[in-house]
Each structure stands twice: as structure tokens, then as C-alpha cells.
């Protein structure tokens, strides 16, 4: 079957799959932005020599994040089933899959945010302190502003990684494009369908990458 035929025939399934992927990635990315930035800021601020230096809290947060990131996502999915049940009342479907996706996304993005914050020139922060600004004002107006290009690039990386992780969400019946590719391509040997979905994914990822880079470049040149 040629690609156009496939697209046409599979349209309902592909459409549903893409919507499921967007749902899962959308929810987990949004939560990653809210909690990942907060967590990343927390990791940065509690470092030695900074605003709220606290070695104990810093270590604790770091260890928790490391543990989450050490566990292979497939296993994490299974381990978090009780939590998923508790939060969403089910263990099946895109919403349920979003629970473990969000946990992974928050831990992943927090590290990227921390890295972006560490890249900010210490001298610029020192100058802001010398000016007499409050720590909150400095965090909001200097730290996050200077780290924004790095944070946006980290967000782009996270979004694209999440699309990949969401493929494994098929395991809990989460659906999505990855799951569709596995079902048709692997289980049904319909490699042409799998290839079409891969091409669509490539286009999607490219689009995300390009818009992410543009946003980061714009933040750089304010």
C-alpha cells in the first residue's frame, strides 16, 4: 500500500493516536513546567554559597530526583500503578499514563533547569545583590531571565523525550502514536503503517525543535 492510501485509510486511528499522544505529553509537560522550574530553582538556591544554602535539603532533593531518573520508565510505570489508581481512579488510558509520565518529566526537566541556572554568570547575580535588590526580585528578574534561553532549550529536549516515553504508555492502554506503531508494525507486521507513523513523528519532532530553538534565540536577544 502506498503512503497516501495508508494515511487515508488509517486516518481515524492515526487521529485518535495523535490526540492521545498530545494529551499525555501536554499534561506531563505542563506539570513539568510548573514543578520542574520550582524544583530546579530549589536545587540551585540550596547550593553552597547561594541564597538559601542548605546542604541537607539540597542533598535530599537531589537523591529523590536521582532515584526517579534511575528507574527505567517501563518499570516506573508499573511501580506507580498504585499512585495512578489513587489519583485518577483507573490504571488505563492516557490520563492514567500521564501520572508516571509527569513524574518522569518533572525530574528530568528539573535537572535541565538546574543546569541552565548554573550557567548564569555569577558576576551578574553579584551585581544585582550589590544594587540592593531583594532575593525574590533577583530570582525573578535576573536569574530566570538570564537562564530563560537555557530553560527553553531544556523544555524542547523534554518535550521530544516525552513523545518517546509516551510510546511505552501503550503498555497501560494509554494509546498514542508510539503504541499504534508498535501494535501495527510489531504485532501485526504491517511495517508500512509503522513507517508512516514514524515519518509523522519525525515531522512533529522537527516542528517542536524548530519552534523551541526560535523561542530560545528570541529570549537570548532581548
Amino acid at each position: 500500500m502506498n503512503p497516501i492510501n495508508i494515511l487515508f485509510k488509517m486516518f481515524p486511528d492515526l487521529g485518535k493516536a495523535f490526540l492521545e499522544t498530545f494529551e499525555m505529553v501536554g499534561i506531563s509537560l505542563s506539570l513539568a513546567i510548573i514543578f520542574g522550574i520550582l524544583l530546579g530553582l530549589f536545587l540551585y538556591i540550596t547550593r553552597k554559597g547561594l541564597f538559601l544554602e542548605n546542604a541537607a535539603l539540597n542533598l535530599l532533593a537531589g537523591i529523590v530526583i536521582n532515584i526517579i531518573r534511575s528507574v527505567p520508565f517501563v518499570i516506573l510505570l508499573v511501580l506507580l500503578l498504585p499512585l495512578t489508581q489513587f489519583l485518577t481512579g483507573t490504571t488505563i488510558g492516557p490520563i492514567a499514563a500521564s501520572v508516571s509520565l509527569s513524574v518522569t518529566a518533572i525530574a528530568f526537566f528539573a535537572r535541565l533547569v538546574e543546569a541552565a541556572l548554573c550557567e548564569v554568570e555569577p558576576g551578574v547575580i553579584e551585581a544585582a545583590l550589590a544594587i540592593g535588590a531583594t532575593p525574590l526580585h533577583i530570582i525573578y528578574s535576573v536569574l530566570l531571565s538570564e537562564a530563560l534561553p537555557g530553560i527553553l532549550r531544556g523544555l524542547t529536549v523534554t518535550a521530544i523525550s516525552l513523545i518517546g516515553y509516551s510510546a511505552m504508555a501503550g503498555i497501560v492502554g494509554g494509546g498514542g502514536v508510539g503504541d499504534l506503531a508498535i501494535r501495527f508494525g510489531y504485532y501485526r507486521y504491517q511495517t508500512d503503517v509503522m513507517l508512516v507513523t514514524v515519518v509523522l513523528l519525525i515531522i512533529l519532532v522537527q516542528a517542536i525543535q524548530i519552534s523551541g530553538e526560535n523561542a530560545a534565540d528570541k529570549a537570548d536577544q532581548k
Partner: protein
Amino acid sequence: MIELRNVSVTFTSKQRRDVEAVKQASISINTGEIFGIVGTSGAGKSTLVRTINLLERPTSGRVIIGKVDITDFKGKSLRDIRLKIGMIFQHFNLIHTKSVASNIRFAMKAAGKPDNEIEQRIPELLSLVGLLEKAHTSPAKLSGGQKQRVAIARALANQPDILLCDEPTSALDLDTTKSILELLKDINRRFGITIVIITHEMDVVKSICDRVAVMGEGEIVESGTVYDVFANPNHNLTKQLVRHSLTLELPDRLIAEFKGIIFKIIYRGSQAESPILSEAVALFNLKLNILHGKIEYIGGKPLGLLIIGVAAPADTIAALFKYLQESTYSVEVLHESD
């Protein structure tokens, strides 16, 4: 205006030995003066200047600004003091993701100034430093000298009484350095702002400072007016730093070939302006060669150095030497041929 009393700063570390960056330093800086702190790298100058606005907390000693002991200030009281102390840095430290105008805006917002006052003041400040047309430019597009000007504008935004300058021209070329120093001098004259300037370049001190302190290995080894420190250095470290002003190199060939005696004469103040040599020539009926010389004007006062060669009988030389000793700051025999 600024007084540091026996300030010491020690950096403790679990891995290495404690580092005593500043040891018992005491300085007194008068209102409206331009005070320099010089020394080689690692002497502790940057650490010392940072105790003035408590970016570094002294391990011991007191910091007094305008008769108020601020050593233990924290939180809001510290921020309020910092609003009145501007600071500029060697690497400018502008906020890269904000425009020139927004950098200044940040400083004024930190002081809680209302928007209309901010928007009025930004063009004022930018005109003062000559960068009005760059208001909406990003710092990345500016040259080093322009960045430092923006930094100066930002430091002056909240009308500080003091301006701290940490090696402000060390990253700039000679011409740009001159223009920045002129700007600082102009600001000092116009607004009476007390300026403290850290540098390892003696030329910077010579060009705009009124008084200077010399630092070595965390201690202040000498201090005084710039003229006195250059013309009459006491400590070895100071002598090292000012030696360029008080020595002139003669080619070996000249020293080897010259028949007669070579004197090095130093003139201070009005001596440099009076015709001592021509009087000596007339008095002793001499022929003398001027082999090398220069006169520097430090804060408008002359400091002169002359190397002359004379060929004459021994008793004339002796009389000349005595005459020069009486009418100049110092005479020294550099070389005597046989």
C-alpha cells in the same frame, strides 16, 4: 565617609588551609575623594572593596559608612545601604537578556521607584554616559567601553553617595580606559560622589586618584596622597609598583662609552619648574649632557627625573654634587668612568 577598622577576611575551607585574604586592614576615605587601592593580583584588593558593601562579610573588624556601623546589617537594612552604594566590575556584569534601558530599569525597580520617575531618569543617565541612542540595544551588541558606560549609568541610577569600582578598566584598551577614567572623574566633580577604585595599574591611580592605599598579601603596606606615594615610596612593594615613574633605562653602550660622571636627579614640586641646571652650568662653568629625562604631572604637581652626564675636574664635580643635593629632592651617582 567610609571607614574600615581592622578588617580581616578569612576564607575557611575543609579541604585546604584557611586563606587570610585580608589581614587587619584599616582605611579612612573622605567624602568626595577618589581613593585608589592598588596591588598585584591576589593581594586582596577585590575582597577588601567587597567588604564596603558587605558582598564579603569581614571575619573581624568594623565597616563604617557615613558614621554608621553597618558590619552586622542584614536583610532590608543591608539592602537600603546597598541602594546608596553603586558598584561597577571588571567584566561589566550587565544582565545579558535585558536591553540597556532595562538594565537601568532593574536597578530603579529594586529601589521601588515609580514607573514615571524611571522612564524620565533613564534617558538622563544614558545622556550622562553618552549612550542615549543605545537605550534599546542588547548588551551583546556593545563594545567593552560601551558596556562599562552602561554599567556606570546603572550604578548611578539611585543617586548613590559612593561608587565602588573593581578593576573597571582592566579589560579595556588604553584609549577606552582613558575615556572611562575621564567619565569617572567628571562624575566625581559634578556630583561629589566618593569613588573607590581598585586596580593593578599604577597609571590609573596616577591619572584620577587623590589618595591611594597599597596592598600586598592582604595587608595595607602604605597609603597617602598619590603624589607622595609616587615621589617618596617607603615600602618595598610600593617602590616596585612606582619604579617606572622613578627610573629611566640607559643603553649599556652609553654608560660604557661616557667619559665622566652620570647623575640621576629627582625634582619634586616647584623644583621641577625652576632652572636649576642652567644655573649650575653658569655657576660652575660646566658642559653637561642631558642623557635622559621626563617630568610627570601627578594631580597637577610635577615630578621630574633627569639623567645628566658631566665631564669636569673632581673638585668641580664635588661642588656640583653638593649644589644639586641642596636644590633638588635627590641626587644619585649612576656611573663614574675611570
